[in-house]
């Protein structure tokens, strides 16, 4: 197996396909889960910050109220600046507060929009004058000690935390996908190895080698169960086939001995009564018997081929040369029967793997069929193409609906093709074709008028 076909096979492996599908599914689940987690986490963070702000707000409100007690309402209140904090002075400050007195004066860092409305808000603030950097702050504004108080907490820190989450999910997803696919390729490769063994054995069995077995496949799983089932089936097939073969050999022997005795007696009878009527009758009986024997042999031959005859006599056969040999034997016969004989070859040579004797017999059968069923005067043509050999006649042909039927043993059409013959000629051709993994193709010789029959043996390229 070349690397290319191995890779091709790997992509057809169900294990790899399954792992690819699982990876896609996993990534999708991860995306949804990540989105949901992101949303929930950001909600939770916001709630937590809001709670913090509220606590701070109330604590500060109390402090401010206490500071304002005992002071005149019109005086400017004095606080330690530390109470509010100033983000402009310290970069890492995450809290600050700002107070607006009843008279409108503000204490602490108080950029414009800070007191625009009450409640929770998230707003961008420029905390460092020198730079354009803007940071997000979560703020709460509410009434306190006669004025309004705003507390703020830096939102960026929470944002940083939230930004970690997709990264974590993407990394986890990527690693999981890579791992799943690698595992898939690994399992696929192993499964393919084991499936390959099964496929090769099945191919061998199809070729007729019934002694092929898958054997142990290692781990005990569904594949090894399948393998042992295949082996068990093949065991059974082998026994059946051997029985069939023995049966046909036994039939052949058990029938042929009495048939031989019968022939011997008839021949003796004919010899003893050479001039009399009895002798004549014996001669007729002998001729009948010989016809029976020909049919008998054909049945045995077909049975043997259909039971998966061996291919040990297969060799490279040149169809052109085979056709030439058949022309040598049959052109004179065809011409003396009143037909024209033509031999056409579109190629100088066409080599196929075949049993030369069987192939010759099959084509001879086709020629004899053409002779039997054609109307004298027409042409009988032997045609060789690169992977096929055909016999074309100009007889009555076979209607399309019967074309498949005539390939079966003992089928003869009642009308034009009914004189003589044993109904086994085409069946034998079909059996020979099957042995060669070739197709028998029946077509009209002339498409327009539907004249004649062209029978082709088409080999796989």
């Amino acid at each position, binding site marked *: 197996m070349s690397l290319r076909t191995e890779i091709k096979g790997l992509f057809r492996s169900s294990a790899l396909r399954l792992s690819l599908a699982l990876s896609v599914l996993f990534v999708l689940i991860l995306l949804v889960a990540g989105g949901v987690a992101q949303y929930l986490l950001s909600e939770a963070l916001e709630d937590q910050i809001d709670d913090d702000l509220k606590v701070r707000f109330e604590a500060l409100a109390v402090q401010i109220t206490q500071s304002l007690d005992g002071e005149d309402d019109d005086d400017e209140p004095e606080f330690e600046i530390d109470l509010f904090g100033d983000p402009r002075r310290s970069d890492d400050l995450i809290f600050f507060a700002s107070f607006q007195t009843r008279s409108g004066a503000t204490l602490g860092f108080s950029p414009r929009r800070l007191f625009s409305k009450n409640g929770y808000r998230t707003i961008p603030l420029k905390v460092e004058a020198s730079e354009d950097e803007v940071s997000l702050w979560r703020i709460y504004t509410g009434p306190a000690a006669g004025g309004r108080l705003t507390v703020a907490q830096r939102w960026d820190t929470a944002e940083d935390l939230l930004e970690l989450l997709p990264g974590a999910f993407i990394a986890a997803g990527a690693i999981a996908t890579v791992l799943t696919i690698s595992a898939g390729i690994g399992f696929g490769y192993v499964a393919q190895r084991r499936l390959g063994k099964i496929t090769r054995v099945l191919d061998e069995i199809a070729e007729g080698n019934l002694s092929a077995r898958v054997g142990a496949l290692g781990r005990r799983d569904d594949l090894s169960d399948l393998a042992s089932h295949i082996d068990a089936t093949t065991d059974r097939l082998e026994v059946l086939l051997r029985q069939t073969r023995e049966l046909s050999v036994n039939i052949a022997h058990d029938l042929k001995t009495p*048939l*031989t005795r019968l022939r*011997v007696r008839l021949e003796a009878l004919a010899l003893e009564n050479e001039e009399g009527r009895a002798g004549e009758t014996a001669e007729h009986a002998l001729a009948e018997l010989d016809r029976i024997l020909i049919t008998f042999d054909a049945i045995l031959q077909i049975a043997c081929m259909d039971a998966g005859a061996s291919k040990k006599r297969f060799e490279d056969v040149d169809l052109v040369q085979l056709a030439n040999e058949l022309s040598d*034997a049959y052109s004179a016969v065809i011409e003396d029967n009143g037909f024209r004989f033509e031999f056409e070859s579109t190629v100088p040579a066409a080599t196929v793997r075949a049993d030369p004797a069987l192939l*010759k*017999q099959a084509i001879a059968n086709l020629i004899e069929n053409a002779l039997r069923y054609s109307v004298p005067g027409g042409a009988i043509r032997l045609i060789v193409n690169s992977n096929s050999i055909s016999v074309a006649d100009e007889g009555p042909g076979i209607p399309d609906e019967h074309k498949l039927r005539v390939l079966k043993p003992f089928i003869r059409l009642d009308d034009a093709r009914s004189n003589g013959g044993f109904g086994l000629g085409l069946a034998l051709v079909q059996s020979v074709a099957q042995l060669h993994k070739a197709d028998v193709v029946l077509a009209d010789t002339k498409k327009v008028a539907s004249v004649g029959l062209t029978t082709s043996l088409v080999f796989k390229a």
Partner: protein
Amino acid sequence: MRLMVLEDDPEIGQWVYDGLTREGHVVDWLKDGREALAAGSINSYDVLILDRMTPGLDGLSVLKALRAAKVATPVLFLTAMGDVDDRVEGLEAGGDDYLAKPFAFSELKARVGALGRRSSFASEQTETTKLNVKDIELDLLRRKCTRAGQDVDLNGKEFALLEALIRSNGRIQTRNMLLEKVWNMNFDPTTSVVETHISRLRGKIEKPFGDTVIRTVRGAGYVIED
């Protein structure tokens, strides 16, 4: 000729024995494979006729044992195992000819005759380049045929057919023998392949000279006699 027949069926064996004896041969008829092996090793026969499915030792094993012991006597298998595979197996084991049962006695007679001739001429393996019968001459190198000094134009198969008939030297060649030898066909065509070619050959070798060279033996085959 001196022949040995290995055949366990009494009726068929008797028929073969009677028929071959009637033809003037001396026949030893054995029914057991081991006896046949012993007889074949000790006696010198012209042709051995072996059945394949015989008690004691099967015919194929008899042949293999004989060939291993350097006995080169021509062997004809006469057996019900008529499959192509069986046939190839028999010939590859060193058999010289193969005749499937049921058989016509004329076919057996002709094939035994052809094998016997081969064994008696086996010593003189001279490579002949010319064959002569009556006033017909075949030049095997130039593939040319002349009769009474006149060229006779034969095609390849007609030449091969005439050569087979002349080489058999007065013995009958059956249709099947000619099909095997000339056309390499081991099956029986339902059409008259042999008859047609014999008739064409006659048209060239007999008709212009107004006589008969190839004699048809009814129910048996063809022969050219000197």
